[in-house]
């Protein structure tokens, strides 16, 4: 009986070791979004290609769409861009870009150089809409449904795996 008390330190340590082992697989810097399954923030932004025209969140009601946050200064965006260009060709859903804290000329030139998969890009020069979406790193990608509710957020460059196994199945489900 007395021996039981002396085993407590060992037991506590082993429990801690299990927690640490699980922790090794996690990324302490990845921030999950509190906006999943919540209404997307209302926005009204000028288009990148035409400052005179404005796109609003309400314009997108009734269809499922994908919002991709990008910038010409973002190195990781170049990684995912070819994938987006391919994805856009399939014309599954409308794909809009959120040009985050960028300069119009730089952004336009970047799209001309690397390809433009977007139906249109929104020009968020101050980053306020980005903040409303909880953007903290570029690139990020959102899936928003017909009612304007955010259904998915992917942080970091898109990969074929994420597109095929997370985003496309979700799009099918929402469209059904």
């Amino acid at each position, binding site marked *: 009986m007395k*021996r039981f008390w*002396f085993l407590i*330190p060992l037991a506590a*340590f082993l429990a801690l070791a299990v*927690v640490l082992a699980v922790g090794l697989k996690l990324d*302490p810097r990845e921030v999950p979004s509190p906006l999943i399954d919540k209404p997307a923030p209302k926005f009204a932004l000028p288009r990148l290609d035409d400052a005179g025209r404005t796109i609003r969140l309400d314009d997108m009601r009734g269809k499922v769409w994908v919002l991709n946050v990008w910038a010409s200064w973002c190195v990781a965006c170049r990684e995912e861009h070819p994938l987006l260009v391919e994805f856009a060709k399939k014309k599954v859903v409308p794909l809009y870009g959120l040009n985050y804290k960028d300069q119009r000329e730089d952004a336009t030139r970047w799209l001309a150089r690397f390809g433009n998969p977007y139906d249109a890009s929104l020009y968020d020069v101050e980053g306020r809409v980005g903040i409303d979406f909880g953007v903290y790193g570029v690139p990020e990608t959102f899936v928003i449904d017909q009612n304007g509710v955010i259904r998915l957020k992917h942080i970091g460059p898109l990969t074929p795996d994420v597109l095929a196994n997370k985003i496309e199945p979700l799009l099918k489900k929402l469209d059904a």
Partner: protein
Amino acid sequence: MIPELGHFLLWLALGVSAVLGTMPLVGAARNRTDWMALARPSAAILFALVALSFVCLALAFVGKDFSVLYVATNSNSSLPTHYRFAAVWGGHEGSMLLWTLMLAFWTVAVARFSAHLPDKVIARILAVMGWLSFGFLLFMLATSNPFDRLVPTPADGRDLNPLLQDPGMVIHPPMLYMGYVGLSVAFSFAVAALIGGNLDATWARWTRPWTTAAWIFLTLGIALGSGWAYYELGWGGWWFWDPVENASFMPWLVATALIHSLAVTEKRNSFKSWTVLLAILAFSLSLLGTFLVRSGVLSSVHAFATDPRRGLFILAFLVVVIGASLTLYAWRAPSVGLGARFALLSRETLLLSNNVLLLVACGAVLLGTLYPLALDALGMGKISVGPPYFDTVFVPLLTPLVFLMGIGPLARWKETELPDLASRLKWAAGAAVVATVATMWLRGGIGVVGAVGLLMAFWIIGSIATDFVERLRPVGGLRTGLWHRARLIPRSIAGMQIAHLGVAVFILGVTLVKTGEVERDVRMQVGDTTTIGDLVFTFGGVRDVQGPNYRAARGTVTVTDKGRPVVTLHPEKRHYPATQSTMTEADIDVGLTRDLYVSLGEAVDGGAWIVRVYVKPFVDWIWGGCLVMALGGLLAASDRRYRAKVRRTAEASTSVASAA
């Protein structure tokens, strides 16, 4: 060639550590004197090998050998020589080599200063330390080889992070590691005692100076880190409860508890299994700290570049070392005796209470540090735990501890009477209240928390004064001189009180700076002034200067006090071309009663600059207090008790020799 030599030496060291870990241990079990005798020489050879390997890495750095990957990522041809040397421990691989060097150093030190220990005991202790070295060497060779080559050789290195190009880098990590690793000695003594079954007061007396030494280094190492952050980061902050800071603070808390627990075990033969557990716990927290910093599970400015494979290895090492020692503890500790009796109110109980409070404090820090990780691991979301939590939770735990600090040293062993204590301490209590009120009146509004801080600090000082007055009082009818009576006070007592005084000084520093610091964030043209109290800060403009590996905008700020010039300060904004980074270098006028802290913000249009000016009262008492603590520890560790045995053994051996 030299890097390959360094690499080879590590493999040799691995082999030697395996021998050191095995043969003396088996020799102690089987009574083979020749195998046990391998322990000391093996320790010496291990140290020599690791030291030479370290020298090889240092030569690669100082010699700008960018064909070595680790050198290329942490150094640069324009890096000044002393920083090229400090860059040896600027990254993960090199700091592991430093850690291993320290471990080998402590091992050989124990081998050298253990003439008074029986052969079996020293054999077991050195064997345990040998296994620890084996683990770290294996880790380095398998996952973190500092001697890996980079092909093709780059023209120049990536440079040491400019934040680390500072005298603090030269001294803080070595001091800190000496402390971290030094706790392995207490650990090894504990494990050896559990193996051999000889846990008694003598064991405690052997362990105590080693533990105190490690504690001193850890105290200084943490204080240096805090002081470095203060002047380096440009914001005047000195503690952020960052996971890596906590990783060093937790072993310190347990080591402090261990020092106090060892006192009881040595004096009264009590708390034996508890002390052993603390010794295991202290070093376990050191190892845990290593894991947290290098595995990537926590986000921190201090964290090294990470790799899950390394994290897994360290975790496995942790499980083996800590798991084995705690299993051994569970097996052997129940049969350890209870030691001597003591009453419900006695110095022993007060020390036990000290231990409970320190461990709860450590537990609180551990809880806060690991809670985000635990929640995430359980899939229950991601949170952050930062200074607001720790400050709220930690300070209330410290207050009862500090209160007891005033009582413990005056309490008697075995049994002490409450009325007796109360009457002896009433002067200290009264003086503390008076001093607190006086300080509050002189300094203006301080607030409740500040008042409590002052009260606690003055309480300790009052208690120390009471103790010394009692000890220096003439005894009986003997007319001995004051100086004579003072010299009679054992060093361990004087050391203890000085260390406690250090705590009081620390608390005063924290309380006075937190309640009294003033900040001004102003836009200054040349000639503009800003005023804090009687001090006038005048901006003298900014000019370009060239440093050894940076360009700087160097500002000039003159300070006058009631018109009399005090100092001219030169804050800088440095640009390091090698890493394309900009550093803010504050300039500080260090004073006994206040620091004047000036740093440059951004340049704004019109030739003006944003200048940040702080007056921080008594802030250096924070690190001064830590220094006093360390000095107290040094005095206590040099008590003749720990040297008497060595002398007696020497005398005994000479008398045996002459008899032979």
